[in-house]
């Protein structure tokens, strides 16, 4: 489904990604953990195309996407939520989702028909809003949303793409315990047809939802395995789980 082979990335003298290789099976729930500065978000940037790899290859759905632009990869079905909220400012939740749905549906070349005619976009927006728990907040401006709801909308926007694979960057970052529970349920409720890769620091969330865990440290993969194996690894436990 999503395979990375020998990814390398450096910024000046700093090597941020060091020979990273992994493979995601369709429908898999993979967590990517590691300390700050390990290169997790940069790895996401390499996968989505926001940064070019210095070396290595990325395969998505049996196609080589290494040279593809971010929008091409998105059109191929690779969705992403960002570590810091990347919403459409000045609009309501509904408008955000309708916009996202319009972007994803490729109707952007139409400049003669009014947008409101496309009722299926509104329907899809409502569907996603309900899926991420924002069904009652459709007409609230995003700036007025509580932080937890904004993070949920962040995931919702990525879902509007109808992605085949979803990359979630620290979805519970900065959330209160209640909000974290809601987000955990959201991720657990995602359809199994979706392949999900999550960067997370909250170990409860990780052990709850992940089939497999990849541990990243200083740009390279330290360990890969099931949650039990990770918990069992003395090295991982000593270096990272103590942080949780």
């Amino acid at each position: 489904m999503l395979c990375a082979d020998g990814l390398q990335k450096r910024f000046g003298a700093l090597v941020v990604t060091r020979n990273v290789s992994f493979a995601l099976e369709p429908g898999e729930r993979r967590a990517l953990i590691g300390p700050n500065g390990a290169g997790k978000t940069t790895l996401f940037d390499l996968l989505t195309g926001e940064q070019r790899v210095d070396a290595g290859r990325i395969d998505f759905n049996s196609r080589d996407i290494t040279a593809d632009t971010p929008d091409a990869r998105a059109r191929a079905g690779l969705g992403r939520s960002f570590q810091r909220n990347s919403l459409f400012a000045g609009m309501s939740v509904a408008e955000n989702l309708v916009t996202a749905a319009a972007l994803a549906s490729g109707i952007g070349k139409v400049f003669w028909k009014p947008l409101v005619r496309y009722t299926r976009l509104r329907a899809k927006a409502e569907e996603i809003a309900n899926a991420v728990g924002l069904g009652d907040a459709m007409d609230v401006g995003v700036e007025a949303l509580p932080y937890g709801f904004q993070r949920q909308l962040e995931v919702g926007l990525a879902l509007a793409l109808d992605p085949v694979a979803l990359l979630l960057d620290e979805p519970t970052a900065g959330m209160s315990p209640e909000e974290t529970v809601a987000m955990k349920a959201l991720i657990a409720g995602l359809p199994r047809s979706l392949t999900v890769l999550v960067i997370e620091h909250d170990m409860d969330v990780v052990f709850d939802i992940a089939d497999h865990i990849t541990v990243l440290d200083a740009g390279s993969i330290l360990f890969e395995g099931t949650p039990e194996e990770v918990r069992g690894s003395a090295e991982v436990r000593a270096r990272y789980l103590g942080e949780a």
Partner: protein
Amino acid sequence: MSGARGRSAGAALLAVIAFAAWLSVGYFGYELITEIAILAIFAMSLDLLVGFAGMVSLGHAAFYGIGAYAIAACTTMLGWSAFPAMALAVAASAAVAGIVGAFAVRLGGVFFIMVTLAIGEAVHAYLFNARAFGGDDGLAGVSQLDLGAIGIDLADPRAFAAFALIATGLSYAILETVVRSPFGCLLVAIHQNERRARALGCRVERVKLGAFTLAGAFAGLAGTLTAQHTRFISPELLAWTVSGEALIVVIVGGMGSLVGPAAGAAVIVLAKYWVSGATEFWMLCMGLAFIAVVVLAPNGLYASLAALRRRLRRVVC
């Protein structure tokens, strides 16, 4: 999306005011109306770029000037009649906008401003020096559209003013349609969050190029109307002050509303004449007023009026 209804109401109001004005003024009034109408088309085209797509251009007069020069060249040098010349002029403006846009739209905010300013000056300098197009003497004798078939003589200022107003109305209708379409939605999305738009599969540069080309086409249309109005054109049509004035109109009127810049055109033209009557330093006044608007009411008159209307409604209801 959310402002569509307000815009329609505003447009209807402006149309009524414009019609009433056209019925009641004398000769000089027709000249003012025509000038306002043409500036309104030019400003609305810039609003598409600045207010909706978020691309601040300081060289938009280039396409305005190309439209004017194209129709002038075709009618005075090639002997064409006005109608095909107008069509070619709009196409030429759009084409040049497409070429410039092809590399300009890849640039971000401040870089884009600098490059568009430079491009505007480039076209200005070229036409200033090009003897083939009259150099700094310009071209005279531009033909007007022949509407004799429906009994209208555009040489009559009253008729031309009406013609200009109708052109403005049609331009608004087309731009409003574009803005309400999925394409318009994409423009706003890119303006609000380009990164997110890209992550949702948007071909950002292609959409921006489309907006830039369309804006160039309407600027060119405004240029053809100016050429037919004064029947004489010169490189001064492409001076940076023309681009600057249009930007001021868009910001003072209220960017991202189409209606605001159209109204702003009226405000600026009338203010310019009024101030010029009192002092020769109207640029000082315009500059200060512009700075005041940017600092105090950055969303322009349109937004301030809308906010005022909301507040009044709360008080009254």
